[in-house]
């Protein structure tokens, strides 16, 4: 049985809590994300940002609360997990490209093995995606032959190849050398322009200001403040938000 929540929003999180043993790392989180929105999550280390986005695609089991993706409750039904993940792409901090596969096979393996799309068709789409992330010349390379920035762009292409409605990014640029941050961010900005719903954990405040529709500031497992980037960055209401900006800016 699929529960509906009657909302048209792309992702709705209701009263989500998550504990590891006695350690409660997410406390009663509620968020609504509209289709096409870019939501940027910021917060100090250990505040629960990674855990939150891992809950959204079921890499962590939630302790209590509900998560709806396009109106379908997904946090409690294992059988829907695989279906739901087809709609949600994820980009990891450390890329996690499949080390034994070429760039092209990394992108094609999902469409061919999971979505059962024909090889030629998947191949064509993979080449188009590689072009989109600016790596057409690297299709035959293995991940360990690429720079971090290139690997992350392939990882984005791999996620996009599944045709997701939502993309999750967990600090996609924080494992990169500074000179490679730009190339990854520009791919992400392009996606934002194409109106793909994005949830991005990042410390790149420039990105948040430029393409963010909403910024969420988390501290100690709570959403302390959320709002339009302009408002939050120029007039943070909460003391904790101000303290955080003072530390990082």
């Amino acid at each position, binding site marked *: 049985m699929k529960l509906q929540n009657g909302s048209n929003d792309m992702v709705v999180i209701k009263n989500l809590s998550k504990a590891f043993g006695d350690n409660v790392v997410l406390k009663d989180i509620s968020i609504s994300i509209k289709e096409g929105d870019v939501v940027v999550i910021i917060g100090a280390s250990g505040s629960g940002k990674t855990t939150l986005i891992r809950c959204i*695609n*079921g*890499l962590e089991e939630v302790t209590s609360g509900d998560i709806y993706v396009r109106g379908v409750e997904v946090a409690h039904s294992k059988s829907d997990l*695989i*279906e739901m*993940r*087809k709609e*949600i*792409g*994820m980009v*990891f901090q*450390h890329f*996690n*490209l*499949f*080390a*034994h596969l070429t760039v092209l096979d990394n992108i094609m*393996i*999902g469409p061919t*093995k*999971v*979505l059962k799309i024909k090889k030629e068709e998947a191949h064509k789409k993979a080449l188009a995606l590689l072009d989109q992330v600016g790596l057409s010349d690297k299709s035959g390379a*293995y991940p*360990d032959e690429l720079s971090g920035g290139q690997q992350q762009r392939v*990882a984005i292409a*791999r*996620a996009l*190849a*599944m045709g997701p409605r939502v993309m999750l990014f967990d600090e996609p640029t924080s494992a990169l050398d500074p000179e490679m941050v730009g190339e990854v961010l520009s791919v992400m900005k392009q996606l934002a322009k194409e109106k793909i719903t994005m949830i991005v954990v990042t410390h790149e405040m420039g990105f948040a200001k430029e393409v963010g529709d909403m910024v969420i500031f988390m501290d100690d497992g709570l959403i302390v403040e959320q709002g339009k980037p302009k408002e939050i960055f120029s007039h943070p209401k909460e003391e904790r938000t101000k303290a955080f900006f003072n530390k990082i800016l």
Partner: protein
Amino acid sequence: MNILSIINAAMPQLLYGAKLTVLYSIATIFFATIVGLIFALCKLSITASLRKIGESYVHLFRGLPLLVEIFYVYFALPMVLPLHRWFDPYFTPVAGILALTLNEGAYITEIIRAGVLSVPKGQTEAALSISMSKYQTMRYIILPQAFKRMIPPLMNQFIQTIKDTSLLSVISINELTRQGQIIISTTFESLQIWTAVAIIYLIVILSLTSISSYFERKYEITKR
């Protein structure tokens, strides 16, 4: 008789023994790899009872001397299970391969398990994130990477298996070691015959070693 003519006379029998040694080794390696894969997946399962089964299997068959396991399957087991009737007239080879398979399978279980665990967790998470099932993740992402790391320890285990087949001589399987014993019981030429037996073992094992280093090099060069 000089050394050469003694060995010459014994050669057909020794080579027949060598052939059996190789055949028993291949059969054991084949079945033990399947058994090892099954119990490794048990040990890696999230289901506690399956893990327990895998652990018990490894503890039991690694914990006993192989010779005792061979005697147990050959002499003790038929007392409760009429294997000798079911498999008549092939009970002896079946018992030999079964005992070896159970023993080597326990070691291969651990090799495969360690290989799978050596693949970073991020690979599994990436596979799940593109909607792969657990089976697809194992099949397309984890096992291919684990396999590469398993080649050296598996080759060692296969070499060990060849040596272990010599214990089958105790249940009258006419592999190389037993052929040596039989020849010596009539010719009394211990030095010459055991030397010949040793050399044949070395040839078999060294050829497997060179196949193994070929594979290692091949995977080294392509790095996958």
